């Protein structure tokens, strides 16, 4: 295969001082050895990938292949997470591909100020995800829905009455969950540098029966991560009908876009 058939896959941007040590012997999305392209005080973490799999046409096709997508997404994240372990990192969105190294150098040069500012923001900080799952039954019971009489006759009217009661309980559960979610988010923001509520994932995507009432993600000073976790544990104790789940620490995926997306 000639050199014309390859391109440069971008994983992340980091400060340039110790890029050699930080790339180590990582393997990327195409099984390639991860390397870095330096430009002044910044370095781009990249890999050489084949266009027949990572070119425009191929990407369009492959991104819709769930197996390919999951393997590639994990590989992309693995490189970024490994880099993150050794210092500040700006994760780049998956499927950002350049024609050659020169184009990446140009990018580092033209966007230098943005990248430096973003690196500044994430230095010494991690991203933590917190999801809250609402338990419909428990939340509805938190209200005062009348208990069903035992041995109730199964007439059509009784069924419809019961159904109506259930729907009312459902509405109550939803507003109770929304209030709890707000309280959780507000409390966690006090322990974080920044935080965002993301659209809740589809219930099906989470693979859980309960539905997601909060999909928050927070940028937390590394030395305050234990405090943040403790706050989540305490919230879990004091909320009814809500189950909290922490993910991470993640590389700061959600807190680099805003600074430089202009």
């Amino acid at each position, binding site marked *: 295969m000639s050199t014309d058939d390859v*391109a440069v896959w*971008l994983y992340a*941007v980091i400060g340039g001082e110790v890029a050699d040590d930080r790339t180590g012997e990582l393997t990327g999305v195409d099984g390639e050895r991860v390397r870095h392209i330096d430009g002044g005080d910044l370095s781009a973490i990249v890999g050489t990938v084949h266009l027949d799999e990572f*070119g*425009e046409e191929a*990407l*369009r096709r492959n*991104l*819709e292949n*769930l197996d390919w*997508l*999951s*393997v590639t*997404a*994990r590989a992309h*994240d693995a490189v970024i*997470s*490994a880099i*993150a*372990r050794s210092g500040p990192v*700006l*994760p*780049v*969105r*998956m*499927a*950002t*591909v*350049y*024609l050659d190294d020169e*184009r990446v150098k140009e*990018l580092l040069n033209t966007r230098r100020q943005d990248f430096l500012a973003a690196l500044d923001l994430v230095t010494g900080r*991690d991203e933590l*995800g917190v999801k809250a799952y609402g338990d419909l039954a428990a939340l509805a019971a938190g209200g005062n829905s009348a208990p069903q009489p035992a041995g109730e006759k*199964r*007439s*059509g009217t009784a*069924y419809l009455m019961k159904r109506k009661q259930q729907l009312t309980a459902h509405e109550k559960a939803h507003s109770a969950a929304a209030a709890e979610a707000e309280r959780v988010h507000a409390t966690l923001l006090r322990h974080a540098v920044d935080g965002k509520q993301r659209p809740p*994932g*589809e219930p*099906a*995507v*989470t*693979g*859980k*029966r309960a539905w997601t009432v909060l999909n928050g993600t927070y940028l937390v000073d590394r030395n305050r991560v234990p405090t943040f*976790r403790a706050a*989540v544990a305490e919230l*879990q104790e004091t909320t009814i009908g809500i*189950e909290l*789940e*922490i*993910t*991470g*620490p993640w590389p700061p*995926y*959600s807190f*680099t*876009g805003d600074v430089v*997306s202009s």
Partner: protein
Amino acid sequence: MTFADDNFAPVPRTSSGGVLSSSGGSLSSSGSTNLGDILERVLDKGLVIAGDIRVNLLDIELLTIKLRLVIASLETAKEVGIDWWEHDPWLSGKSSELQLENERLRARIEGLEAGNGQREVIEARRAEPEDVD
């Protein structure tokens, strides 16, 4: 066919998902991390830079991906026994309680109508002897 197939790498798709579960104390992209959580970040977030090769992830592709994810997750959920939507009369197309109730009522009405017809016949027969009397 060989069993040592390097290309076959089953990827765990569901999280362990307990209360306050966490993927551990270090930055980790191990196989246990929920695919949905990873995709949410690597596709929707991160530095958005215009590469030379343009694929608009926010358009059609992402929508398709999400749909496929939902489908895949439904299958996974079924495998582990989560199938509540199949029993919810408002979500499943199957015979629901409401439908069963409806069928019972129809049967009852039919029975009543049939009963009325018989009763008329009986009354008519009763009336006959009175006339004779």
